[in-house]
């Protein structure tokens, strides 16, 4: 007797588990049962599991009968002529969906010519084990699996050409690559996904060699000549949005150049880019602190006295300004209304981003790296026929990561560029490496892709031959211009008097708990005290009650609010955060008494 479970609930038992499973599968293929029902017969425990629940991942496969694919030539001809569709194949039982449990019982062939009598299914294409982005990696079968997922993750962050109507759109954080190109080495997925309509990289000439240590630890050295000619150049768009809000009592915001008597008026200079309507003029170059949209708001609190107050009706200044470190050119001003009928002002800023030290670049094999140096073109090594690479990639990045496809793509890119054709690098189904080598030889190059190169500084030939080729490189959206930050002095938080946090607020860089531990481990106590001085204060403390007193600057004397001025007061240096902590303790009824003792007291 075989126990039967439907969605992991025991429902009864059947005589023959094998037959029961086969019956369900046949009914499903005949269309009598939903295509999402899956069944597993577990022989070891003698149990049948029928799965009907949602949330299982299911995978389409071609059904194989008696060692032959049910997807016959006849059917595929009909598919090509559009006489048949995917749903027809499922109805006919040519294609079925398997979930992970039913896959246990299946034997899936990669290719049709590998089919034997034991096979139950045939994969539609070997590529279907990979996702969309992973299928975009050429020669993926030569890479370590981890590199494929890393490569596809990084590709999603590549700067490219995301929409043809980007001029008309206002999106957050947009990067547009100036000269996007199709990859010379492409895969099936590039064609299927219409990649040529939204490419996101460029074909560069790349040499695998170190360069004076400027490309160590995964950095790359980039040719300044190539950068000047537009390699990796992109434009960054960012919107500034403001809305005329309505408040209770018929009051509302007003977009205009604020009057001088408005509360919180900046300087005249800050409003210099505004036109009469209170919005910046297009194509003006704005920097941090400049007002983009001038706006005033009604006062925050209204009371009955305001009606008689002549000086009343003081409006607040609430303009949109550029925050710390931001800059750009006003690209587009859009006036519209939002869902609530309020006037909505959107201003789009534009900024050209030329590759600089610290910008992130990546090949499609998870080989990411930042620019370590931009080298003038005359200082880039050159080959026999005068070719200077755009990028110098450090060979140490290769052995441990085993991205062989990176090397093969370079070879393929070289052949494709020289022959003027696209190279097919579809994973599991790519052009042969040997063919690429012999093609290169026919073109008059060394078949292993290396070339003799010369040092630009001495003019001498390098002893080693340099591996040089062409491959698809992508610039990622992480750019130093958005991230660079430092501070010596700056704003502090009101509550704790500690430095603010984060780049946008010009914050400090935190010396964290583990960093603090290193000071202690070295025994550098006095240095540690100095480092944590950012919020130190001196407070008078009553020696009688142990609470914080008040300093009266007129009498130049401290007194205790509870014990009066007849007690001894001592000035103690401590961190403001601790003072705040004691205040908090008092606020919920705990009495933190400070007992003072002289440092020089022997006892």
């Amino acid at each position, binding site marked *: 007797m075989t126990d039967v479970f439907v969605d992991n609930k025991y429902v009864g038992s059947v005589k023959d588990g094998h037959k029961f499973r086969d019956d369900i599968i046949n009914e499903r293929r005949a269309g009598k049962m939903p295509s999402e029902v899956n069944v597993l017969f577990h022989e070891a425990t003698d149990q049948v599991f029928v799965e009907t629940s949602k949330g299982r991942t299911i995978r389409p496969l071609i059904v194989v009968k008696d060692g032959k694919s049910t997807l016959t030539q006849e059917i595929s001809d009909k598919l090509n002529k559009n006489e048949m569709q995917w749903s027809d194949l499922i109805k006919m039982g040519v294609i079925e969906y398997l979930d992970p449990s039913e896959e246990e019982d299946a034997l899936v062939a990669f290719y049709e010519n590998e089919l034997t009598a034991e096979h139950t299914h045939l994969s539609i294409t070997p590529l279907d084990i990979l996702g969309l982005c992973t299928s975009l990696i050429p020669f993926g079968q030569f890479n370590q699996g981890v590199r494929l997922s890393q490569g596809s993750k990084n590709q999603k962050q590549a700067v490219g050409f995301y929409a043809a109507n980007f001029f008309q759109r206002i999106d957050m954080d947009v990067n547009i690559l100036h000269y996007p190109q199709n990859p010379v080495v492409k895969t099936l997925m590039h064609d299927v996904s219409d990649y040529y309509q939204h490419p996101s990289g460029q074909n560069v000439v790349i040499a695998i060699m170190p360069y004076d240590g400027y490309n160590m630890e995964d950095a790359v050295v980039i040719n300044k000549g190539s950068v000047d000619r537009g390699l990796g150049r992109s434009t960054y768009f960012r919107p500034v949005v403001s809305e005329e809000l309505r408040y209770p009592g018929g009051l509302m915001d007003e977009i205009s150049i604020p009057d001088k008597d408005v509360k919180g008026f900046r300087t005249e200079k800050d409003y210099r880019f505004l036109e009469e309507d209170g919005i910046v003029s297009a194509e003006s170059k704005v920097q941090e602190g400049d007002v983009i949209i001038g706006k005033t708001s009604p006062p925050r609190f209204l009371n009955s006295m305001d009606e008689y107050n002549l000086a009343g009706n003081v409006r607040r200044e609430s303009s949109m300004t550029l925050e710390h470190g931001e800059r750009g050119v006003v690209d587009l001003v859009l006036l519209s209304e939002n869902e609530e009928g309020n006037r909505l002002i959107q201003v789009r800023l534009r900024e050209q981003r030329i590759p600089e030290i610290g910008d992130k670049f990546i090949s499609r094999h998870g080989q990411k790296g930042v620019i370590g140096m931009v080298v003038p073109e005359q200082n880039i090594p050159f080959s026999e026929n005068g070719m200077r690479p755009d990028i110098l990639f450090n060979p140490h990045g290769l052995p441990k990561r085993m991205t062989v496809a990176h090397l093969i793509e370079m070879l393929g890119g070289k052949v494709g560029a020289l022959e003027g054709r696209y190279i097919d690098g579809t994973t599991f189904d790519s052009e042969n490496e040997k063919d690429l080598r012999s093609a290169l030889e026919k073109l008059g190059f060394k078949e292993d892709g290396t070339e003799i190169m010369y040092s630009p500084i001495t003019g001498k030939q390098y002893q080693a031959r340099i591996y040089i080729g062409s491959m698809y490189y992508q610039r990622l959206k992480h750019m130093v211009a958005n991230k660079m930050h430092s501070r010596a002095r700056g704003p502090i938080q009101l509550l704790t008097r500690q430095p603010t946090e984060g780049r946008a607020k010009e914050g400090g860089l935190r010396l964290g708990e583990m960093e603090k531990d290193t000071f*202690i481990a070295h*025994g*550098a106590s006095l240095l540690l*005290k100095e480092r944590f001085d950012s919020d130190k204060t001196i407070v008078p403390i009553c020696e009688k009650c142990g609470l914080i007193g008040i300093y009266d600057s007129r009498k130049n004397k401290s007194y205790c609010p509870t014990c009066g001025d007849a007690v001894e007061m001592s000035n103690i240096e*401590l961190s403001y955060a*601790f003072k705040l902590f004691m205040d908090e303790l008092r606020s919920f009824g705990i009495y933190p008494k400070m007992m003072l003792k002289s440092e020089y007291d022997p006892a």
Partner: protein
Amino acid sequence: MEHKAFKDYQDLIPEKILEDVEKSLPEKISESKVKKILELIYEEYKNSLAEPGESVGLVAAESIGEPSTQMTLNTFHFAGVSEMNVTTGLPRIIEVLDGRAEISTKMMHVYLKKPYSEGKEIKKIAESIKETTLKEYIQEVSIDIADSQMTMALDQDKLERIGLKLGAIIKILEKSFAKGYSFKPGKEADNILVIKSTSKEDDLNNIYKLKEKLQDVYINGIKGIKQVLPVKKGDEYIIVTSGSNIKDIFKLEFVNPDKTTTNDIYEIERMLGIEAARQSIINEVDKVIEEQGLNVDMRHIMLISDIMTTSSTMLGVNRYGIVKEKPSVLARASFETPIKHIINASISGETDYLRSVIENVMINQVVPVGTGLPRLMVKTKKKKSED
């Protein structure tokens, strides 16, 4: 001690080091050279001592913490290699230092007495200490849906091997399922057991659940020993078990209790005392670090083990253990659940003398370690009038 020079250093250098030095000296060596060697060793020894004011605890924490961040990445390499799956790597270190009462994979190395340690009846002994459940004696189970009763066929041969009969099994089952079910021998054969629910409302699912429960009923062996594996270690045979029960294992006549160990430190504390637990913490942590090919100085582990056991019970390195024992309110409050500590301190009126590190960091005062420790003493002349 052959050489005279050793006597001069007997009180200055630990005995173990002196022994090691003596062993590695060449046979013919002049007395002056020995003296010179010992002089240098003494210098080296003095340099390696912790100085006053050195924060040894923090250095120990860093020295174990840093390598263990590397371990996380390595653990999967060892998954499923050995026949018995044992928790190693970072999870194991966390488990030991946390002082967990229930560890994830208990394990014993059972050493045997003389004739058995040479391999005599090793398999039979191993089998006899293994805990068995009803599952292992069941040949077939069938559920009768109509009468909602279950029929079990038991393996007669296996039962005979442990010397139990159907009647005894029924007694065991009746003991563990006192109410609701009746157990009776079947009529068809000697090895048939019929199980019936006494309450009629039981549905099919409950019967099925009962079937799963019945399979786990304890029949024979030593409780807690889930698996046994006889292994040859060096010259002698030992039994490696998964699951641990030192108390009952020690009672067996063929076991050598002097060498038998478990990785359950709490059990060691209960059976052998706190000193044994201290040593076993050191051994367990060191074992993991050794396995991972990392290098941590033994003294760091010893220090942590000492702190965990000085209060004569096992304390974990967490807020229920050694942090709870800290004298400073602020230090306790700075590590997890601050409100609880502050409220309790205010109820009992505790005083914080600011003698440790973290309190002084909080109020931005000099930390009393390293350069913050020494103070200047000035001798002041007393005025005569005051006398």
